[in-house]
């Protein structure tokens, strides 16, 4: 900070998530020295600058994009920035929320401002109703499959339509979370009664007369019917199937009923990229996706580490066991999600099925902590990125919804969850 102060510490929150272990005892000592130094530096800075802070010893600690909304920090109409690309999550509340780099974080801390130019806007409308077994994760992956990972570059996306309106706040956060995987720095959804019901009563939400005043303004935060859009994408909710990724980019997405594509089916630079992806993933074109065997299941992350995600996975796992030899892990997105899942009996379902029941953090989504894949290990993951090495060097990631990941844990291969419902 070059001797500068934090301009608005009361509007700033910090929480360790990326690099913390998710095993017991971490509040006493973090064994990895680099991680310990990083967390200690955060502890000290939060204290020195008077920032709102949730250390690992606090039950409210968790992934920042789960903690912010849970504590009522994230409100409609706000501008929210954070040094993490999945900040788009907070757009679910009708906030303009996007990831920034370290230098921009420094700029915001010092000035409470950021120099920006106006983005283009894209309307992504999901009409109609989702079929059983299809979730918010399938919506957001299907949109990326349609736009490509660069399709949203330079845009802010507004998700709308009947199928979006029908989603809970948890589902909406899942959708907005992955806007960045489509290249859009921010994705948002106009606030409505679902939003207000979620926000009301949270620790940092407005109270009493201020709540009424805030509601009056929040209700005005929607796009006009005749608003101008730079790009419009419409998908019928009924056309969305449970999907999985087959490659090393989130745009490499297909319905679970499909087969591994041939690189020649693509155009331009994507042909080489697809060849490289199949080689890295150890897959052959033409293989049915349902025949792909997996070694590991990871349920968690800022995309799918909320209570509704754990409920969806537990509904599939109830009374069942994971496949012999399978390594399976549930990492709740926050300490409060974890506590609620324990209270609802979900933790017992996971444990009885053979899952490890972890403490909150980013965990295996990015392997910046002890939770990692080994080379060649294949994982069904509810996280957001299937990049080479993302979950550990040589690790192979297939992205999907929590229910799909739970189904794969039981059968040992990628599975159409609709067959288990």
């Amino acid at each position: 900070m070059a001797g500068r102060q934090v301009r608005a510490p009361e509007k700033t929150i910090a929480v360790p998530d990326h690099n913390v272990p998710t095993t017991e005892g971490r509040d006493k000592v973090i064994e990895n020295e680099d991680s310990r130094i990083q967390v200690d530096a955060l502890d000290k800075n939060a204290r020195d600058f008077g920032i709102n802070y949730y250390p690992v010893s606090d039950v409210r600690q968790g992934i920042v994009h789960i903690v912010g909304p849970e504590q009522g920090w994230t409100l409609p109409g706000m501008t929210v920035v954070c040094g993490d690309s999945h900040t788009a999550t907070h757009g679910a509340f009708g906030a303009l929320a996007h990831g920034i780099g370290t230098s921009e974080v420094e700029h915001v801390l010092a000035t409470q401002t950021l120099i920006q130019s106006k983005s283009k806007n894209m309307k992504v409308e999901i009409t109609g109703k989702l079929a059983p077994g299809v979730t918010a994760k399938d919506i957001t992956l299907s949109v990326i499959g349609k736009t490509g990972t660069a399709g949203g570059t330079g845009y802010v996306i507004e998700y709308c339509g009947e199928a979006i309106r029908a989603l809970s706040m948890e589902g909406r956060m899942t959708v907005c979370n992955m806007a960045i995987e489509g290249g859009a720095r921010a994705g948002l959804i106009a606030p409505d009664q679902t939003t207000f019901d979620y926000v009301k009563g949270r620790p940092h939400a407005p109270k009493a007369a201020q709540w009424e005043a805030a509601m009056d303004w929040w209700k005005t935060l929607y796009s006009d019917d005749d608003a101008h859009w730079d790009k419009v994408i419409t998908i019928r909710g009924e056309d969305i199937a449970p999907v999985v990724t087959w490659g090393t980019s989130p745009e490499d997405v297909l319905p679970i009923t499909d087969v591994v594509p041939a690189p020649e089916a693509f155009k331009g630079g994507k042909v080489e990229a697809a060849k490289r992806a199949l080689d890295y993933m150890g897959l052959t074109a033409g293989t049915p996706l349902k025949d792909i065997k997996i070694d590991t299941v990871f349920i968690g992350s800022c995309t799918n580490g909320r209570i509704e995600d754990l409920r969806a996975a537990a509904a599939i796992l109830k009374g069942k066991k994971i496949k012999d030899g399978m390594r399976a892990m549930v990492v709740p997105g926050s300490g409060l999600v974890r506590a609620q899942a324990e209270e609802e009996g979900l933790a017992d379902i996971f444990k009885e099925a053979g899952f490890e029941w972890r403490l909150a953090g980013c965990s295996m989504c990015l392997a910046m902590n002890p939770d990692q894949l080994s080379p060649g290990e294949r994982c069904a993951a509810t996280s957001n990125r299937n990049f080479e090495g993302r979950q550990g060097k040589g690790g192979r990631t297939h992205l999907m919804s929590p229910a799909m990941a739970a189904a794969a844990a039981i059968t040992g291969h990628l599975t159409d969850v609709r067959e288990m419902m």
Partner: protein
Amino acid sequence: MDKFESFSGVAAPMPLVNIDTDMIIPKQFLKTIKRSGLGVNLFAEMRYLDDGSENPDFMLNTPAYRNAEIIVAGDNFGCGSSREHAPWAIKDFGIKCVIATSFADIFFNNCFKNGILPIVLPQEQVDVLMKDAEKGSNARLDIDLENQTVTTSEGESFAFEVDPFRKHCLLEGLDDIGLTLEKVTSIDGFEAQASQARPWV
């Protein structure tokens, strides 16, 4: 920040599309609390073999491109995470300019904060530059920010766009926090007004 000066440098061709920030700097190197010294880890998983030795097939390990100062890349360079370690590693390696048909937004912004010039050009022009870069260390590209041109070793020149304010900051090596703080009265005014209009924030 150092001033960005016009230069002539070797360009490494990296035609792969969607080069993501996990490729540019794998997560195990994000645990540093410093911005320097990351060049050795740039593209670590492609650049080094399992035993830690250099992968002789990786572009930046070949004699022609060890001292590259420019990367000519495929579409959507820098997609993925907001980690500023990506531009830090690129800069520390010695790369001052990346040319592609498109960049991910956050990476693009992060470049300017670190004295790196990302240049967006149409596919046909990137194709020409890619071919030129493939000639190795004898072919050097000229990068002229002042006049906004890239010139191949054969003298073919392409004009590029850059935001005037960002250009100014790069050329002068300016710290934009300092610039913003000169406007503190406007910020104070905005905040006073905002806290009246939306006291709950």
